[in-house]
């Protein structure tokens, strides 16, 4: 898990040395592998063991730092604007193999204009070594690296129908 020093600062006060952060994270179970400077930022590579998937995002790593230094963790409030249309009329999700996929959430966002991402967002992705593509692809990567939840954007107009079906592969 590579974390951006500047990005972590959104969630917890970082006025200490990066070296001290690396040392204490190592001793807390997130082994420090390396740190490289990317433009104005630091890319800190941490080894996350398989029992700590909560640390596969910046908020998770920031939570560790907040606890280690006894500081406040500032998690952004996801203020979601909602439209007037009923979601059931727009799209549907069906899970045909609940034993493999216990939960799948989807959201329809309308009025999207594809364009470049804002500079600050592009810079953060570049620090992590993630390719910057466009605002839609970038924001899915950004949210994944923020909270550790993988997500994907589909163009609703290009789906065969307005439905996501989760199932096992079929023969042929």
């Amino acid at each position, binding site marked *: 898990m590579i974390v951006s020093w500047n990005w972590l600062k959104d969630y917890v006060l970082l006025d200490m040395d990066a070296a001290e952060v690396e040392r204490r994270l*190592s*001793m*807390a*179970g997130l*082994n420090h592998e390396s740190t490289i400077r990317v433009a104005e930022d630091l890319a800190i590579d941490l080894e996350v*063991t*398989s*029992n*700590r998937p909560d640390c596969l995002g910046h908020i998770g790593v920031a939570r560790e730092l907040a606890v280690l230094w006894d500081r406040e963790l500032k998690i952004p409030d996801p203020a979601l604007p909602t439209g007037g249309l009923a979601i059931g009329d727009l799209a549907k999700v069906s899970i045909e193999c609940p034993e493999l996929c216990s939960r799948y959430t989807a959201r329809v966002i309308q009025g999207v204009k594809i364009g470049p991402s804002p500079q600050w967002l592009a810079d953060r992705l570049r620090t992590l070594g993630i390719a910057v593509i466009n605002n839609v692809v970038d924001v899915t990567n950004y949210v994944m690296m923020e909270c550790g939840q993988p997500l994907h954007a589909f163009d609703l107009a290009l789906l065969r129908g307005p439905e996501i079906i989760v199932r096992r592969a079929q023969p042929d």
Partner: protein
Amino acid sequence: MALGEFLAELDKVAADAAATFESVLDSDSLEAARVEFLGAKQGRLKAVQKQMGQVDKADRPAAGKRLNAVKGQVEAAFEQARDRLGAGKSNSPKAGAEQFDPTLPGRSIRQGHLHPITQTIETLKEIMAGLGFSIAEGPEIEDEWHNFEALNIPLVHPARDPLDNFYLSVAGVGKGALLLRSQTSTVQIRIMEKMPPPVRIITLGRVYRPDTADATHYPMFHQMEGLLVDSHVTMADLKSVLRMFATSYLGADVHIRFRPSFFPFTEPSVEVDYHWNDQWIEFGGAGMVDPNVLQAVGYDPEQVTGFAFGLGIERLCMRRHNITDIREFYRNDVRFLHQF
């Protein structure tokens, strides 16, 4: 000095040299002949060369040319004689007999010796025996129960991926699958299945993982695994044993530290580092045996606790001998192995 006189002198030297070099029988007389004819200061050729200045100026190129030719002949005769003596191929049987020196020591047969990894294993066994651990062994071809299931690595765990293990094609992946063991922890299970606690064992042997070989990885390497199960075993015991091991192997002043980590078969789990040249260097993984593992072999986790550790033997050996590339161990180059 006339040219003829000079050339006659040269011819005489050439003839004498040829006869002398042909008849030398040992290296002493060869050396004496070399000094007589080719000596840089008092040699006879040198003496003739010095007379060059007295030859008429017009004749000097011819004289010089001849001098060089004779010099070449004498040197060739010397080299021939040297080769003849060196190769021990004298034309005269008597010469051969005289060459034999009964006072020379005999040529000893070159002896093989233990591979550096084997030497390291012997050292580790000695240290651990001193701490009361006995040696256990297990098969290198394992079933999935011992390599995974009993070690709390369930079927869905990514460590069981066929791409991360050497499964044997005879049995296929799935029920009854066999694989080359990916860790020596398998032996823990075999021992605990067979005997009741207390258990205090180490096991040393080969493990196999499909890694691409580079300076620090090899698809086959060696591990030392330790296991201690008894009533009232704590992490303090683990730390003491590893500290005693580290000071025995690396030196009395070495410091070790535990870093939190994760392994499916221990809880809590740690990585063990030792301090060397102002740096912490990882030398193995360890932890308290997971209650699920104790249960899998029929022990009562309410009655007994235990610790386990695994160390890479190549890494320990490389540190001790300052070897920088793990592949050297398995190239079997005698010039490398000979040094240990």
